[in-house]
């Protein structure tokens, strides 16, 4: 288990790091850069830093250039989302899961809505199921574009155009979202039993046209990275996650699949209409930084294929059950329910305990980035600080999910 510190006691992280240095020095381990007066140094990669994605603070103990220890300090973005659930009705809470992993909002909303539907026994309409899958997969593409773009931007600030091209292509997907749901990021689109709006006219054709371009986009990203000697040198063989690590630390998502662990919730515990769709689970071989990047690019291609299938299979019909009337209050029977949903970052779980009233009794998120962050000290130890930046970028963390 690794140490986490929250902003409630930030200086304790520094104190712990310094204490450990003192202990190690007393134990007789020397340093390599003693000539320059560098023994073990505690450095703060503070909450504002171009490389830590979001407000993550890493208290890094450096021995010259090597990282000896990393203590993450989180909580700078804590917004009490789990507590908020206790004071809002199930319906009022729907916009809020959007804001946990804000890059993959549709997926997070779906996780919450799925849990409540299971708890209350609501079955969504068939057309809405397909629309949900389309939106979630589109969001997967957009999220991976952010992940890959920022990862490459870590390695080469402005030094490669990939981040600009990826974000430019993502804009087109966000335009699709805006036409369908009204917003580019905080969608508030899912409802119990369906989705809020039906797709506007011409949306299906626009989406199809865009999805046919996705393989070309992925080829472009790969042409900038995959053969580039500098990228290869910085990414190959670094930050390897072994199968044991995946099991011990419960790593899920592309991070685990890059190590060859074929765990994809859309296949192992399918939900919604995924059993009817044909897609392959993208695996990597070596589990290093380059493989994690490659898995994400491959997943973009697979998501485009899924969306095209859904657009072809899209049935007619209503998109909402129509049974909910203002003031939109549902009271699920007492009980508890957990569903895991395949977020672009891993398994996004929502656990709701209901006591039969209009408000949830307890809502708990299982956030993939929070769990992946626990691997950091083990992963970064022994690497140079520049490699540490690359490795942390490849894990694709979103602080909104870690802090909630």
């Amino acid at each position, binding site marked *: 288990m690794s140490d986490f510190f929250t902003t409630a006691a930030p200086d304790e992280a520094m104190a712990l790091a310094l204490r450990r240095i003192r202990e190690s020095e007393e134990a007789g381990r020397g340093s390599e850069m003693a000539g320059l007066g560098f023994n073990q140094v505690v450095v703060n990669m503070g909450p504002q830093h171009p490389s830590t994605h979001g407000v993550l603070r890493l208290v890094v103990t450096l021995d010259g250039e090597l990282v000896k220890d990393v203590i993450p300090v989180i909580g700078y973005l804590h917004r009490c989302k789990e507590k908020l659930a206790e004071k809002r009705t199930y319906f009022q809470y729907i916009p809020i899961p959007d804001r946990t992993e804000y890059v993959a909002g549709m997926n997070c909303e779906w996780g919450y809505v799925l849990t409540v539907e299971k708890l209350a026994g609501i079955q969504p309409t068939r057309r809405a199921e397909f629309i949900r899958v389309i939106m979630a997969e589109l969001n997967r593409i957009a999220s991976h574009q952010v992940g890959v773009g920022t990862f490459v931007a870590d390695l080469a600030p402005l030094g490669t*155009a990939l981040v600009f091209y990826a974000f430019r292509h993502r804009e087109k997907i966000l335009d699709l979202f*805006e*036409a*369908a749901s*009204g917003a580019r990021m905080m969608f508030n689109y899912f409802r119990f039993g369906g989705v809020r*709006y039906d797709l506007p006219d011409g949306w299906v054709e626009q989406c199809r046209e865009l999805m046919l371009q996705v393989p070309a986009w992925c080829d472009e990203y790969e042409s*900038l990275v*995959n*053969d580039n000697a500098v990228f290869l040198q910085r990414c190959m063989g670094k930050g390897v996650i072994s199968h044991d690590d995946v099991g011990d630390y419960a790593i899920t998502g592309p991070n685990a699949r890059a190590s060859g662990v074929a765990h994809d919730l859309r296949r192992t515990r399918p939900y919604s209409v995924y059993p009817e769709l044909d897609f392959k689970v993208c695996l990597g071989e070596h589990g290093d930084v380059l493989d994690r990047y490659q898995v994400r690019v491959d997943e973009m291609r697979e998501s485009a294929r899924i969306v095209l299938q859904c657009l072809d299979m899209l049935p007619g019909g209503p998109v909402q059950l129509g049974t909910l009337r203002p003031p939109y209050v549902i009271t699920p029977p007492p009980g508890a329910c957990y569903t895991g949903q395949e977020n672009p970052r891993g398994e996004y779980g929502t656990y709701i305990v209901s006591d039969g009233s209009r408000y949830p009794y307890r809502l708990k998120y299982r956030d993939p980035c929070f769990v992946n962050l626990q691997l950091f000290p083990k992963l970064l130890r022994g690497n140079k600080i520049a490699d540490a930046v690359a490795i942390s970028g490849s894990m694709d963390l979103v602080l909104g999910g870690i802090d909630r």
Partner: protein
Amino acid sequence: MLGILKAMRTTLGHLPQRKITVQYPEQREQLPERSRGLFRVVIDPATDDPRCRACTLCETNCPVQVIRVNYESKYALPAVNEARLGRERTESQPTPDLTLLAPVVDHYRETGTGMMAVLQHTQEIYGYLPRLALQEISLETGVSLSQVYGVVSFYNQFRLSPVGRFVITVCHGTACHVAGAPLITEAFSGELGIEVGKTTSDRLFTLQTVSCVGACALAPVVRVGDDETHGRMTPDRARALVNDLKHRAEVDR
């Protein structure tokens, strides 16, 4: 090396492509119809009526001051939300003569005295602050209507509903209270048939109470309008005063 050359070729391929920059504000992108980023008036599907009541609170509170609320007609009231305002209240104000406001607004423009002075002058002219007059002030001075209402509702001095011809003020300061002011207020109330703070239906009398007039030697004190002060009142004398005022009103007519 070859890989780097391939990357360079990809990058160079973007040079002749069309640039995506939208030169805002000369060019603007078309937002989709459902976009929540557009300002628009929401139509209530149940009544087919816009939900906006032109309260101009959005104009007041906008941090970047980009909202201007334009009413449809300069001299018509904004649409009345009958669910909230009683018919009585909306019809109780006679249409004021707005030409009387012109010198007030001109004075404001010349000297820049401020909203308080404008409102005080307006109240002197009409005896209260009619809704249409406030609207006219808002349109002429450019201050949003909700801000004007903000000033008006803050001070006790400003009256939003018309008062009677005779404003009867009963002092409830410490000396007057001890001398029996509540009984006097009760007498007035019974004689006129109205509660404290209200106006009689023939618009002759308004009854109100204040904390202290400052004439404690004459306790209990009653003032009529701004000019008359009656000291050492008793409930009988109060009823006599009411009759006297009614007589005076008839004579004046």
